């Protein structure tokens, strides 16, 4: 379906519907990189294979990218979910972005508008894969002490390079709270405390928003499984609130479970 995708990109550019197509291209050393296609002829540089998993929606909120004019994005399901979430959060409006959708079985999807894309992607159940579930459960089964040591161990190498944040399409805030020093919400040094506070805050800020694209984990130079945290929250929200809310943390049910409150 590669050809169809390239043709679609070409059409979008040549018709002037978009000025940029954000897709995947060959990088150095068998790596895939994000490709910004500006001319129809360059569309043939686009590739699509199992290595193409980066969440390209991350570029949609960047000032520099916006300056290029209206973009189209090559979007697998997690990317489409991201765009849906960005729409909900008023960061992307209908008409601002075109989507070259890629279905789970790698078919190219045509969407007349973002609304139809949102409908399409909403129909696909949002849940963790069996492997992801197993990983969360494995940790849940440990004792609290074991979990503590586990996180102390995996976070010990974190140098707070913030690659996780940069790669995350939903971490679009222009001034991240971690940079706030009045008050200093997150301890600056990358010692145990600073790292823990950062990762707790990151996870909580993504609670109810994260689309589980996995880019944070892929971006981490130390391969810290920090997406376990967001995955845990995804299962919690589904289990405890039924997952029906658009954003679980600004909604409530009067009978939300409160067995832990005395």
């Amino acid at each position, binding site marked *: 379906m590669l050809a169809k995708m390239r043709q679609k990109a070409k059409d979008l550019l040549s018709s002037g519907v978009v000025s940029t197509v954000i897709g995947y291209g060959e990088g150095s050393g068998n790596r895939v990189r994000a490709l910004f296609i500006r001319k129809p002829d360059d569309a043939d540089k686009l590739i699509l294979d199992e290595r193409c998993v980066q969440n390209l929606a991350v570029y949609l909120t960047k000032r520099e990218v916006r300056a290029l004019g209206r973009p189209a994005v090559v979007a697998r399901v997690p990317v489409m979910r991201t765009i849906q979430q960005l729409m909900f959060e008023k960061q992307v409006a209908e008409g601002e972005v075109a989507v070259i959708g890629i279905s789970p079985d790698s078919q190219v999807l045509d969407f007349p508008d973002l609304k139809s894309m949102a409908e399409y992607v909403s129909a696909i159940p949002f849940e963790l894969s069996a492997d992801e579930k197993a990983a969360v459960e494995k940790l849940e089964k440990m004792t*609290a*002490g074991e979990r503590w040591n586990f996180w102390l161990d995996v976070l010990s190498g974190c140098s707070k390079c913030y690659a996780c944040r940069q790669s995350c399409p939903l971490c679009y805030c222009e001034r991240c709270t971690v940079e706030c020093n009045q008050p200093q919400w997150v301890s600056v040094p990358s010692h145990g405390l600073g790292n*823990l506070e950062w990762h707790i805050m990151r996870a*909580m800020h993504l609670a109810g928003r994260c689309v589980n694209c996995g880019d944070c984990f892929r971006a981490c130079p130390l391969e810290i499984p920090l997406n376990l945290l967001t995955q845990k929250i995804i299962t919690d929200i589904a289990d405890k609130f039924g997952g029906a809310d658009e954003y679980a943390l600004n*909604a409530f049910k009067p009978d*939300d479970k409160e067995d832990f409150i*005395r």
Partner: protein
Amino acid sequence: MSEFEPKIIAFVCNWCTYAGADLTGTSRIKYASNVRIVRLPCTGRIDFMLLMKAFSRGADGVIVSGCHPNDCHYTSGNFHARRRWIVFKSLLDFMGIDVRRIHFAWVSAAEGAKWAEVVNSVVNDVRALGPYDGYKNLAPIAADWRIQDAG
């Protein structure tokens, strides 16, 4: 060194629990002096990071308390807070943070006795757990604070 006395920080809403704690006072019901209350307008105002900062400041236990469901002065602040706590508490537990040190309660303005009971039971529980060294040792700076407190 005498018996370990835990440091407990309580985040409470102004309308129910703070007033309830006032009633504890006017009723002259005694409770452990280990607790320090931080007054906020509503449980909805309680940022989850405040809880983390309490621990980093050397707290051994934290109480979060506000109005009973349906009694919120602002109608729904406590409902929002409760959702946040559900997610947050589970996340902390998942990270191995000792959630036995975080206590959530609804204490109304009429429940002066309950407030004393909550404080006493939290102080006893946390005293039994011992100092939260695991957290305090995360950063060298926390130890400095403790020295300052002792002096």
